[in-house]
Each structure stands twice: as structure tokens, then as C-alpha cells.
């Protein structure tokens, strides 16, 4: 792990948080703040324990990344927060189909999009990402399955600790699971 890579990701995180703050405020029609509380570089195996235990039920918005940064990104929060915030987002709408999951997926998509944009700007590469999927299971089951997709190469993952103000979602994590070790230019 290189110190300058962490510094680039830290700067990218602030840029991503600012973009997510504006986009979520627009979507929800009130002021929402997204803050980066911290950034950790971790071994993939260590992530579930450090994020509160393998058994915790979570909602995860997962997207595959392409281009200058191959791998995955996962926006994860406790399931109870995901339920609360998605209900708030769809307030007043009829509960048709998977509208609640769609609402949470859109929220995750906004956070992921802004952070990936921040990372692309700061590393100086073009990054695209697939339409996000939503997963609901234990943290261990979700992360094992994601890490397994890249683990032959992946030795370090990066975890942004996020906090929110103005919404029912208090805390969440954005995890970057690169297929290869990232290096600064």
C-alpha cells in the first residue's frame, strides 16, 4: 500500500462526498450532508469483522467498475437504516413492486457515481460502472461473494466511513474492491 494512493483516495472522497451532498439534496428536496469520517486500507478478509461482524444484516448496492479501475464498489449500510431511508424517499407513493428497493438502489447509485467520479478525477483515469445491483443478506455473505470475484488479485480494499445528516441514514460504508493493487501515477 502506498501512502500517496491513500492521499489521492482521501481527496477523491471529499470530492465524492460534496457531489453526493448536492445530488441527494436535489433528489430529496432538502439539505442533506454526506461526510467522509475516515478511509481505511484493509485486507479483504478483515473487512467483515472490522465493519461490525459477519452476521449483521445489511443492504448493499454493488456495482462493477471498468476502465482505469477494474473491480467493484459496494455501498453498504445496516438493513434497518436502508428500510427507513427508502420509506422516506418514497413517502406518499403507492408501494408498488420493488419501489422501496429501487429507491435505496438509486441512493446508492448516487453515492457510488459521485465517489467514482471523484476517484477518476484524482487518479486521472476514466472509470465506468455497470448498473448497480442490490443485495440483502449478512455482511459476511455479501462481502465473501464480492471478494471472491476479485480475490485472486485483490490484496487491499479501501473503505470509506460515511456519515449523513438530514436523512434517516446515519452511517454507511463505501468499499472499493480493486481487482489489482491501485498505484498512484
Amino acid at each position, binding site marked *: 500500500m502506498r501512502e500517496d494512493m491513500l492521499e489521492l483516495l482521501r481527496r477523491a472522497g471529499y470530492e465524492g462526498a460534496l457531489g453526493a451532498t448536492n445530488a441527494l439534496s436535489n433528489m430529496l428536496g432538502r439539505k442533506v450532508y454526506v461526510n467522509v469520517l475516515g478511509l481505511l486500507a484493509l485486507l*479483504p*478478509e478483515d473487512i*467483515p*469483522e472490522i465493519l461490525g*461482524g*459477519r*452476521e449483521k*444484516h445489511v*443492504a448493499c448496492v*454493488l456495482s*462493477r467498475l471498468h476502465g482505469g479501475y477494474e473491480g467493484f464498489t459496494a455501498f453498504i449500510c445496516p*438493513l434497518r437504516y*436502508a*428500510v427507513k431511508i*427508502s420509506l422516506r424517499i418514497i413517502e406518499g407513493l403507492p*408501494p408498488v413492486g*420493488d419501489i*422501496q*428497493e429501487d429507491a*435505496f438502489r438509486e441512493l446508492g447509485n448516487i453515492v457510488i457515481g459521485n465517489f467514482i467520479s471523484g476517484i477518476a478525477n484524482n487518479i486521472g483515469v476514466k472509470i465506468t460502472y455497470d448498473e448497480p*445491483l442490490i*443485495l*440483502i*443478506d*449478512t*455482511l*459476511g*455473505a*455479501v*462481502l*465473501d*461473494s*464480492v*471478494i*471472491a*470475484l476479485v*480475490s*485472486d488479485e485483490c490484496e487491499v480494499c479501501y473503505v470509506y466511513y460515511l456519515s449523513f445528516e438530514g436523512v434517516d441514514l446515519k452511517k454507511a460504508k463505501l468499499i472499493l474492491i480493486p481487482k489489482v493493487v491501485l498505484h498512484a501515477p
Partner: protein
Amino acid sequence: MHLRLMTVNRITDRDGCIAVNIGEYKVGYGNVKLATWGLGSCIAIILYDGGRSLGGLGHALLPKPSSEHNTLNFRKRYATTLIDLMVNRMIALGSEIADMEAALIGGARVIPNLNSHIGERNAIAAKERLREWGIKIAFQDIGGRSGRNVLFYVRDGKVFVAYTLRKGFR
């Protein structure tokens, strides 16, 4: 004593459990409870020698290593090499191949849209390696879409499995 699968809604007896995380294995005697929580596409491998009250639980992430990753630390990530390590540990503790039986749990397809089939490949690789060792599989509980929690009582060979999938947001 033989390995027995007990499917339950929830695992409640957690006091004194020894947790086995990704890329780890633990082997113990007698009144020992080994557990792995939130198993997704990973596969839990249980080896058991009921006559000696000796058993082990491993948690593998991937099917088999490419050669450059076949170092000790990485070997525990893979089903095939993790089984090798577990078998050797069991033998070192007094067991014999003929007295061992195995169980395989996990290998779920938690991310259905990504066509990776890692769970299935984990199970196939583990079964193949157990066959090469000549260790019979007492039971397997693999596949599906849900994560699993696993608790293994070494003393009597009971293996409790609980599914973890929560349906949607409603």
C-alpha cells in the same frame, strides 16, 4: 458418532463458539464448538473423526490456487489447499484418513446477476479434493441464494445450519 446436518431457523447457542473466518481453519477435540457466520459463495469444509472426537472447520473463499499464490497464507483461501492443510492437521493430531468423514456447506450464489458460479466451483473443487484423499462426504448443503451460519459440535458431530437471507425491504 457421525456428522449430522441439523437445519434450523436461527443458531442460538453461541457462548464459547470459536469463530472461523475467511481463509482460516480450526481443529479441535471434544467439547469444542466451531462456527462460521455469514457464509456466502465461500464454502465451509468440515472434517470429522467421530471415534476420536476430533474435528475441524475451514472457510475457503475460492476453488483452487494459481501456482503463484500457492504460499501458506494464500493456500488457506482455496478449497483444495485448505483441505490439504486440514487433513494434515487431523493426521498430526492422531486421526487416520479411513476414519475421517467430511461435510460441505455454503457455495451460494448471492449475486445472481454476475455469472461467476464461484459457489458451484468451490463445491466442485472441494468434492474433487476430498475424493482424491479418499474421504467420504457425509452430507452437503450447498448452492441456493442465501448466506448461511454454521455451528459444528465436535463432541457429537452435529452441524447446525441456518439460512441468513432476508427478503427485500417490506
